[in-house]
């Protein structure tokens, strides 16, 4: 059975333009006990990030209006949000793309398709380490 959220009601902001996948992540995370708020692109995520406080932000890379890299950089520029760990969950898997993600300030870069249990495990590790990535497999 799937691991449960280690931090009770940890609040996660997700940004994903593809509705099916946005829903999938939302269900997966909610099912594991996280409080999930979803945005449909980077620009919306940037707005939502400033309206509430989140324990973690999980973003797609390729999104309309503002892509994940840019949204990540913008969030990292805001002093009150600088400490919030940002994780990419993208189907873009070339090493240059992954490097770009870390370059934008992300703490982890996960690939789609994802295994739900692995996704939860890694999120829990990051939260447990106080915003530092756990062991990357």
């Amino acid at each position, binding site marked *: 059975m799937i691991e449960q959220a280690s931090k009770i009601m940890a609040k996660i902001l997700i940004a994903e333009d593809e509705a099916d996948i946005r829903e999938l992540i939302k269900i997966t995370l909610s099912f594991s006990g996280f409080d999930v708020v979803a945005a449909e692109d980077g620009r919306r995520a940037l707005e939502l990030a400033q309206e509430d406080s989140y324990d973690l932000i999980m973003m797609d890379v390729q999104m309309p209006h503002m892509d994940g890299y840019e949204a990540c950089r913008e969030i990292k520029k805001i002093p009150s949000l600088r400490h919030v760990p940002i994780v990419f969950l993208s*189907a873009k898997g070339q090493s240059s793309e992954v490097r770009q993600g870390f370059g934008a300030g992300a703490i982890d870069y996960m690939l789609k398709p994802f295994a739900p249990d692995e996704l939860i495990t890694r999120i829990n590790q990051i939260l447990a380490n106080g915003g530092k990535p756990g062991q990357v497999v």
Partner: protein
Amino acid sequence: MTTLSELTLQQIIDNLPDAIIVVAESGEIRLANSKARALSPGLKTHATWESAGLLFNTDPQVLQQWMALLRSAQSAYFNIGLSGWHLESKSILMGAEHCIQITGVESSKEPKQSILDKQTARISRSNKLLEITNELSYLLEEELVLEKALQLINEPVAAEEGLILLTDQVTGEFVVRVEIREGQQPILTEKPTGIWPNQGLAGWVLRTRQAVLVPDTEQDRRWIKHGSAKTQTGPLVLRRSVLAAPLEFGHEPIGVLMLSSPIPQRFSNDDLSLVREATGLISNALYNAHLYDLIRNQGARLGGMLREEQVNAAKNQSILESIADGVLVVDQEGEMILANDAFIEIFEKPRWEIVGHHVRSMGEIVEPSGENWFNAVQEWSVNEPSGRAGETVEDTIVLKTSDRMVRVNLAPVFAGGQFFGTVSIFRDITREIEADLAKTSFVSLVSHELRTPLTSIRGYTDLMLMGAAGELPDAVTKYIKIIQTNAKRLHELVGDILLITQFDGGDMPLTVAPTDIQNVIDEVISNHLKNRINVENRDIKLSVEGSKELPEVMADRGRIVQVLTNLVDNALNYTRDGGKITVTARSTNEAVFVSVRDTGIGITAEEIDRVFDRFYRSEDNQVRKIAGTGLGLSIAKTFVDMHGGNLTVSSEYGVGSTFTFRLPLVEESS
């Protein structure tokens, strides 16, 4: 082709007062001297015999009859043709060719009998001289010239004794080089005479450079007896009458030709003329022999070098022309001296705008993108890049004229330690870059577009199996698991293909750090292999053997995990239940070795060389039954290679296979 001796012969006969034509049996004119050409300006070497008719003003038919007559006879007088000329002809050997030599002597207005006598005498003298000339011209060794000359001159004169005296190059003393007695063969010697150029008749001839006839030596004050006595060999030779003429080398007197007789008044003025003219010819022949010697020695040396160079140049040229890359050679003055076809094609400039121009004229095409190359190629022609052998400059140029991307490599060229210039090799990489960009963006796009729907397929099947949609009927669970397995396969395939395109694009940096291989083995076995065995409900024995104390290697841990994962996956895929997988680690001073041994189906000897080929899958039905892409081993090998290690396989069909990878302790290459 005109040879040296032909030129010599021509020069010599041009100096003769009489007209001479030599005709080959074919009717072609082999030789005509300037006197003959002056009489008939149309007469040319290699022209036909008929053109000689102009000279002799003769009906061609008569000439042909004459020719026929000459072919059968040794010689004939032919008193036809131009009035006031007397012709004599004889057959001669010129080189190896039988020819007919026609000598024309201008008649004077003397009384008839006297004319005939004089003409006969002159003709015989001219013939003799031509014979000397002809024979000597083909002799290109000094000693042979001397020998033959003395013999030839003495034939018509018939002196009892003939000598050629040359001055010693060091002491100046006259030395007898050739001597001849009437009716005998000439003899080469090195006999000193005790006479120096300031003494005696020989000295006088040498100093004044005049031929002289001494009717009686006892009446001539120039004659000294003691000298002649010293040259004596055998019985005493009395020299009462003497003919002497100087021999010259270029314009330097080198010796004296002397004919003598014990009888006073023995020689005539005709003899003197003959000797005078003949010594001129001998001098020429000697000079030629010497020149020839010089030229031959130099020529042999230069010829060897030249031929080698020509062969090389021709070879180099054709090599340069045939290579697909553009080649530009710039000499040490900065002048572009060679541009091959590929260069012309890349730069779309006519060759005449390149070759012969200074390389600075390339600026308008290559700047500013090709600045590095452009500066270096100019700099190196100003400041010789000595000590820069092996140094190269690389640059990428965007041509202003065509927007083509051109990769250039510049290198200095040294020949025998001497700076010769530079060579630049240009490669049009426009297509490569376009293709590369297209490939990268295509791969990125495809992998993204494949992964996005896979994310939903895998994610929602996982969710359902997690119970997110409530309790599922058994059949539905079974079907969804099939979807899940295949979605995973598809996912792995997309990942593998992406990896492979990254290898090909060189876009695969390693992040190396000290890595504990035992830890990698433990992780792959417990997190992955055991998990798979459990999930797939397989009956496989696992064993980890070997040293527990392995040195750390410098490696990209993630990649090594992938290598070992691929190897154990391969082992598990092809090993039947009840089999065993053994992972062994050991180390030497240089490397760590990890082996994965299975008791699977094995690989045939025919196929073992191909197991690392991409997408290679055996035709074997046992293999075909098992899902796989044929990429796992290829990827593992690539990763190991990137670490400077190697991956090898040994196998026995039906018994099992062992894959071993070696990682060097000191990184051998990146």
